[in-house]
């Protein structure tokens, strides 16, 4: 579905099955854990069993004496890994730098040591023999209590708040103020203000005040973190094969931690088995340190348990809202407190979460305070649009409750108050082109919404049917990107990019090159190089890969075209401005018989004694304007009022893709994010006991949706072009996760007339909301 006249192109805009699919369906693709090197050691981790404790003794003797154990690496040994003898773990303020706990453990599951063995079994047995003595420290486990001035500290004070994790995913101008002076668990606080709250609430005909909770959840990529690292003492070269969304990010981090010259450091981002914001670097630092210490290749593959305990899942939150609406449906005021549980290291998206909860709708009066709070839970990272499913779950239930309070259609209220292009965000910066209103309109016209009365009529005594709508979005990140594009002797083209292809972006890139050079998509091969062979590329995160690298590819193709035109014009004694492309040829416009094929152009630019330079196109862009993407999702569900079980019966995800370069992969992103949103809404949650130990560190109890839990998803693409994305494209990977949990919560209310204010909406919470279970 489109809301504007869709421009017609020849290669972009077509449903293109992904080019690398063949490798993946035959098991040929190489993921990091598939790499095996001669003489390779296996690393197993020793994890802290306690959420907060001082390490008083660390005895590795028994482990070292075990047959097949080659070395044990702890925080103290890291000075042997760094080329200048410095110790990167000392005083580390961010999670990536803190490879091993340095005297203090700050979450249960934090790596304390790695044991290297000739075999996996030897390393595993050795890990059991590492003897660590701990002195317990008070564990800080509740984010709200942690904010109290008299709360114990989750960790020794950190001087510099490090924003590496947060900045990887979004570009915002807001920088949170860091807590000053007295040591506190509040890692950062950001606030936004507009108008006059009292006046706003005075004007309201109806006010809603509620508080909402969202659980800590895992990205749930099916491939656990994995790295194989090799150090060759003779040449000083370090090679790292790893599962990451950003190989240059890994390179830069390893260079910084271990003082390695980048000429000697090669990072190969392998085929990636899912990342969703959670695959930055966890295993690469540890494996590389081990390889540098042992001077042998080392393989480190997280077990699922380790990945749940010690990777970077995404924060739980508390959101408190008070808001007002007039009987005509105008929003008058919002007062919001947004609290994210960052776990033991900073990295929670307090700034962007607070900005967006304040900016999606036109609040004339508002005050928002956002906090990132340190606790002794596992430290967090991103998940698709980080932090946004949390605030959406709160905001969209709030909007729903207000609309119902004044007897208006929730879709109408959203449309009436939705932000439009040019509206000021709470930060004072205007929204670039956005399609929030168009997205809501398309959802409101969808049969799930227009026929919701018929669905509700199916309700019986014990099975209640409801339909819910929720809207959300994501600003998208920005990062420079570059690529190369070379003409081959057979007239085809090879591109080299350094960005990871997780979900098929290389296919979209091939479509862009094919478009600009008027050739079939099959004539373009897009290759992912490593950090020594590919030009610089950012992290595949922040929904920015297509809109930044895609633009770079387009520039490179235009560069190639211009080089071809210049050479062809010279050969054909014509003017470069009169050249046109047709079917793999450069022709003089109007006289198709005066032409040079791409193959001929390759021959005369590469042959012995050739007078021309080889044709190599370069694309390098900086990105200035974000391309925010909005989504509106519709859930239809049945609640069993006896068991509290929820069955999703129908689903629609509407999303503004700007321009869908490859609708097949855009739908794939929408459906994948929707599936994650459904899990977050219904079943996924880190369950801690009272002492701060994770009770469900396995996939049996950390319940992600199966095919049987997931309904058919109707994807509806809206296209409101962005300013800078190629052909108007927007990032699509992240918005899709944001609204599912809120749509489910609103549908539950529609079915039952009560709200489940805590996500996920487990059967227990549903029964509690119905008053059928005591609190």
């Amino acid at each position, binding site marked *: 579905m489109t809301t504007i006249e869709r421009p017609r192109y020849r290669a972009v805009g077509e449903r293109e099955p992904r080019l690398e699919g063949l490798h993946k*369906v035959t098991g040929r693709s190489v*993921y990091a854990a598939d790499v095996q090197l001669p003489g390779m050691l296996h690393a197993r981790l020793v994890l802290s069993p306690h959420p907060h404790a001082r390490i008083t003794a660390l005895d590795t003797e028994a482990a070292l004496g075990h047959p097949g154990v080659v070395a044990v690496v702890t925080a103290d040994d890291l000075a042997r890994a760094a080329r200048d003898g410095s110790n990167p773990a000392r005083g580390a303020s961010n999670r990536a730098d803190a490879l091993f706990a340095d005297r203090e453990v700050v979450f249960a599951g934090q790596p304390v040591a790695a044991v290297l063995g000739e075999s996996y079994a030897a390393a595993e047995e050795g890990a059991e023999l590492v003897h660590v003595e701990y002195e317990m420290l008070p564990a800080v486990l509740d984010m709200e209590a942690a904010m109290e001035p008299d709360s114990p500290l989750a960790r020794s004070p950190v001087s510099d708040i490090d924003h590496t994790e947060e900045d990887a995913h979004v570009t915002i101008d807001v920088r949170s103020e860091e807590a000053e002076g007295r040591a506190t668990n509040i890692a950062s606080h950001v606030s936004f203000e507009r108008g006059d709250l009292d006046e706003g609430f005075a004007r309201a005909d109806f006010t809603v005040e509620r508080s909402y909770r969202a659980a800590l959840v895992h990205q749930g990529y*099916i491939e656990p973190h994995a790295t194989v690292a090799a150090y060759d003492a003779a040449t000083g070269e370090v090679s790292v094969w790893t599962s990451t969304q950003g190989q240059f990010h890994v390179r830069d981090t390893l260079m910084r931690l271990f003082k390695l010259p980048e000429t000697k450091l090669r990072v190969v981002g392998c085929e990636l088995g*899912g990342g969703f914001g959670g695959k930055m670097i966890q295993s690469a630092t540890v494996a590389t340190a081990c390889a540098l210490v042992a001077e042998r290749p080392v393989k480190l593959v997280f077990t*699922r348990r380790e990945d749940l305990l010690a990777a970077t899942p995404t924060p739980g939150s508390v959101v408190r809202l008070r808001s007002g609406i007039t009987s005509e449906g105008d929003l008058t005021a919002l007062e919001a407190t947004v609290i994210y549980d960052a776990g033991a290291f900073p990295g929670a998206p307090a700034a962007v979460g607070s900005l967006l909860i304040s900016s999606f709708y036109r609040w004339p009066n508002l005050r928002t305070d956002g906090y990132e709070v340190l606790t002794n839970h596992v430290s967090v990272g991103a998940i698709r649009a980080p932090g946004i499913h949390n605030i959406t779950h709160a905001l969209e239930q709030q909007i729903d409750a207000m609309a119902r309070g004044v007897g208006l259609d929730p879709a109408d209220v959203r449309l009436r108050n939705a932000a439009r292009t040019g509206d000021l965000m709470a930060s004072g910066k205007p929204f670039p082109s956005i399609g929030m209103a168009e997205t809501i309109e398309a959802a409101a016209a969808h049969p799930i919404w227009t026929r919701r009365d018929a669905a509700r009529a199916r309700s019986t005594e014990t099975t209640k049917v409801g339909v819910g709508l929720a809207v959300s979005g994501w600003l998208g990140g920005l990062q420079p990107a570059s690529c190369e594009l070379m003409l081959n002797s057979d007239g085809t083209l090879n591109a080299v990019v350094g960005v990871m292809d997780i979900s098929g972006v290389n296919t979209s890139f091939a479509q862009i090159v094919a478009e600009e050079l008027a050739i079939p998509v099959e004539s373009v091969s897009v290759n992912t190089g490593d950090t020594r062979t590919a030009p610089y590329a950012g992290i595949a995160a922040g929904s920015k890969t297509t809109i930044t690298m895609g633009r770079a590819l387009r520039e490179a193709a235009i560069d190639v075209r211009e080089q071809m035109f210049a050479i062809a014009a010279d050969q054909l004694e014509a003017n470069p401005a009169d050249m046109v492309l047709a079917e793999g040829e450069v022709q003089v416009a109007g006289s198709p018989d005066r032409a040079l094929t791409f193959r001929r152009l390759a021959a005369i630019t590469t042959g012995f004694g050739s007078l021309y330079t080889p044709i190599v196109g370069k694309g390098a862009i900086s990105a200035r304007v974000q391309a925010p993407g909005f989504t509106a999702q519709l859930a239809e569900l049945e609640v069993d009022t006896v068991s509290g079980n929820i069955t999703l019966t129908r689903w629609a995800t509407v999303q503004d893709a700007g321009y869908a370069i490859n609708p097949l992969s855009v739908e794939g992103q929408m459906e994948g994010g929707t*599936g994650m949103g459904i899990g977050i809404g219904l079943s996924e949650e880190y369950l801690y006991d009272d002492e701060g130990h994770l009770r469900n560190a*396995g996939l049996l109890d950390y319940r992600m949706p199966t095919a*049987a839990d997931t309904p*058919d998803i109707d994807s509806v693409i809206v296209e409101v072009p962005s300013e800078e994305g190629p052909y108007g494209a927007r990032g699509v990977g992240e918005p899709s996760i944001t609204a599912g949990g809120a749509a489910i919560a609103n549908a539950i209310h529609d079915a039952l007339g009560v709200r489940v204010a805590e996500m996920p909406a487990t059967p227990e919470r549903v029964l509690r909301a119905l008053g059928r279970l005591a609190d």
Partner: protein
Amino acid sequence: MARQTHLLRVNGREHEILAEPNRTLLEVVRDDLRLTGAKEGCGTGDCGACTMLVDGRIVTSCLMLWPEAGGHEVRTIEGLADGSALHPLQRAFIEHGAVQCGFCIPGMILAGVATLERTPGATRAEIRDGIAGNLCRCTGYQKIVDAIESVAQAPAGRD
């Protein structure tokens, strides 16, 4: 642990394996036979990434000790295509855009093969049940179910 020797038949080829009997079928196939198409996503039988077919039945190979597979016919994703001719399900997964990161895909396709062998002409609901032991985090299952359904509904003659 004392190593044992057994014959293992994988994708129609006999291999004589010498290995510790407490290693899993997944480990031996991946590390010793270097067939790395089957993946380890959990090691506890909960994700299906390690799915293999043993005598045509779905097996989570991370839970099966390799000597137990001795004397049986093991099939991995590498053995599904007939030379350069893809299995119809492999083709359908590509055409329907069912492949994203690909980590679940080898197991998912084999689960699809077993489902269609058990229930030819399976409905969408039957397909969803058939692959419910295989987690995918990228696709929301939509295009995976589409792909399997297209083969289930294809006129007989395509296997």
